């Protein structure tokens, strides 16, 4: 007899209800959901479920798939809003998180062509925008190899394993509300070449990714991309590295975002803690006026500390000394 799954036990089968998103942009006015209750075994991945729905129930059900080995990146979808690579994600692992009801949806409902198939145009155009290739003066008849040492390769921190599935991009809340934001996949790719010792376009790429409104400063730091990536690329850490590289290479322009980052050091050196009021004033410059209504409402509630009452960390001399001897960046 088959052993039924419970959330904590080893098992042979689970009964799961899949609520599946259906929409054909050519013929449907609105999307709808179809329910399929299936017995699922422990070794099945989400792609097996998509196949079973198509083969056993409805041949018109559409989704992308190709390699089924987690390397082509085409079968990325969402289950209960979690980005998954359908061929890699075991149903039982999702069952352990969500239980027996799973909603299967495309990566982005607003970009659907048919069912799970979305138009990834925006993803690819942003990808293209960061010069996602090696730029190097190559000697056509080199006398020696252009070697990259294992240590130099380590510096890429898996950035080269990206399969362009879009899991991070379509999980990114900044992408959701700001159509100009370059997004985690393309920024991780910019990192991949900017930390390649053979590449000559570091500065050009920093100029591209450093623009306010579309680049690294528009990352909301939510770590959705790190969580979503099925290949361990960890895009947000690559974005952070691009931030620090921007300062290191002297490419950071003085603007609200760079002043904001730098002011933390200034304030810690002065008080240990962050002077929140001065942070806004220093970062915004004249733009600070737009914060006045908010500041008044906070002041009324005792939420603004006056400069003369600014709290300070104990043993501040120690902090000042550490700032002095441990600083590694300049602006």
């Amino acid at each position, binding site marked *: 007899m088959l052993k039924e799954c419970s959330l904590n036990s080893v098992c042979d089968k689970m009964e799961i209800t899949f609520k599946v998103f259906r929409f054909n942009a050519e013929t449907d006015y609105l999307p709808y959901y179809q329910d399929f209750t299936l017995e699922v075994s422990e070794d099945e991945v989400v792609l097996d479920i998509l196949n079973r729905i198509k083969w056993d129930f409805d041949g018109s059900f559409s989704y992308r798939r190709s390699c089924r080995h987690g390397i082509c990146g085409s079968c990325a979808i969402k289950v209960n809003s979690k980005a998954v690579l359908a061929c890699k994600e075991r149903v039982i692992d999702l069952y352990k998180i969500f239980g027996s009801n799973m909603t299967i949806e495309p990566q982005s409902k607003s970009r659907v062509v048919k069912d799970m198939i979305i138009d990834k145009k925006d993803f690819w155009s942003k990808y293209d925008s960061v010069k996602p290739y090696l730029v190097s003066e190559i000697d056509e008849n080199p006398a020696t190899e252009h070697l990259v040492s294992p240590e130099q390769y380590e510096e890429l921190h898996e950035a080269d394993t990206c399969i362009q599935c879009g899991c991070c991009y379509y999980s990114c809340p900044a992408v959701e509300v*700001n159509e100009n934001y370059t997004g985690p996949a393309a920024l991780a790719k910019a990192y991949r070449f900017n930390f390649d010792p053979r590449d000559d376009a570091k500065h050009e790429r920093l100029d591209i990714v450093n623009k306010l409104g579309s680049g690294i400063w*528009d990352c909301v*730091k939510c770590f959705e991309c790190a969580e979503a990536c099925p290949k361990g690329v960890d895009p947000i850490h690559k974005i952070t590295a691009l931030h620090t590289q921007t300062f290191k290479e002297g490419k950071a322009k003085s603007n609200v975002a760079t002043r904001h980052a730098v002011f933390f050091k200034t304030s810690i050196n002065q008080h240990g803690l962050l002077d929140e009021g001065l942070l806004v004033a220093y970062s915004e410059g004249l733009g600070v006026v737009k914060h006045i209504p908010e500041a008044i409402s906070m002041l009324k509630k005792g939420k603004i500390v006056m400069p003369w009452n600014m709290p300070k960390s104990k043993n501040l001399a120690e902090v000042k000394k550490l700032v002095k001897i441990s600083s590694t960046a300049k602006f």
Partner: protein
Amino acid sequence: MSKIKYAIYTGCTPRESTPELLMSTLAVCKKLDIEVVLLDEATCCGASHLQDFDEFLSLVLNARNICYAERLGLDLITLCNTCQLNTAFTKERLDNDSELKAKVNEKLAEVGLEYKGTSKVKHFVYALKDDVGYDVIKEKVEKPLSQFNVASFYGCHNIRPSKLQNISNKTENPYKPTSLDDLVVALGGKAVEYQRKNSCCGFHVDLQAPETAHKLTGNILLDAIDNNADCVITPCPLCHLNMDVKQSHVSKTMGRDVSIPVLHMQQLLGLALGIDPKELGIDKNVTKVTMV
């Protein structure tokens, strides 16, 4: 059981723009008989912004903060998701990279400190859940929240990246977090199911991309409102600033009224434990807390 004692790392916000968070935390600890030492020596964690400028400096400063908890022989408890992220991240880096730890300790030695790695770093929510226990808290409830639908908002830096956060929060899943909802139920309230409980409020781009921040905050508040929430609670003062203070801006951006009381998790807990609202700083919330 011996008395629970913590080194509390307040970070900046509870000492400046969210004084009610410090008040309510201290009031709740007193009521639950938790002994507290405030780490007055600690500095700002860098809030993930200093890290964009000077990562090594941020590691040294965060390691220094942890040193002071280690000196007391206590676990370091954070009150802010972003403090949790940066402190836990520093600890994880130093505990797993002896070369980096040596470099950081070389700096700390100049001021007579040494990072050892002996104190755990965890957020107050998980201290309540795993050390005190919700069953114990449930027994101490004086005013059950039976009339209220509470939307728990988790924020980012307490649940993601899960690989880091699971060191201290054990089983919390970033795609289906439950710690706050379980607390609400323990307090006798109804936990509101809504999709955006684990999404981002956009706080970290408030200055450079206010529209992004307003839309993200707006989406959360409207999702909570549309699912009949009477109030929202959060474990993070930065999320609280966005969701409580900015409601008029957010309403304008969204084209819909997003008014709803937003409480620090400690404030709601305090109310259920029968603590005087004044002691919890309820009057300091910008959006009036109508339920009190």
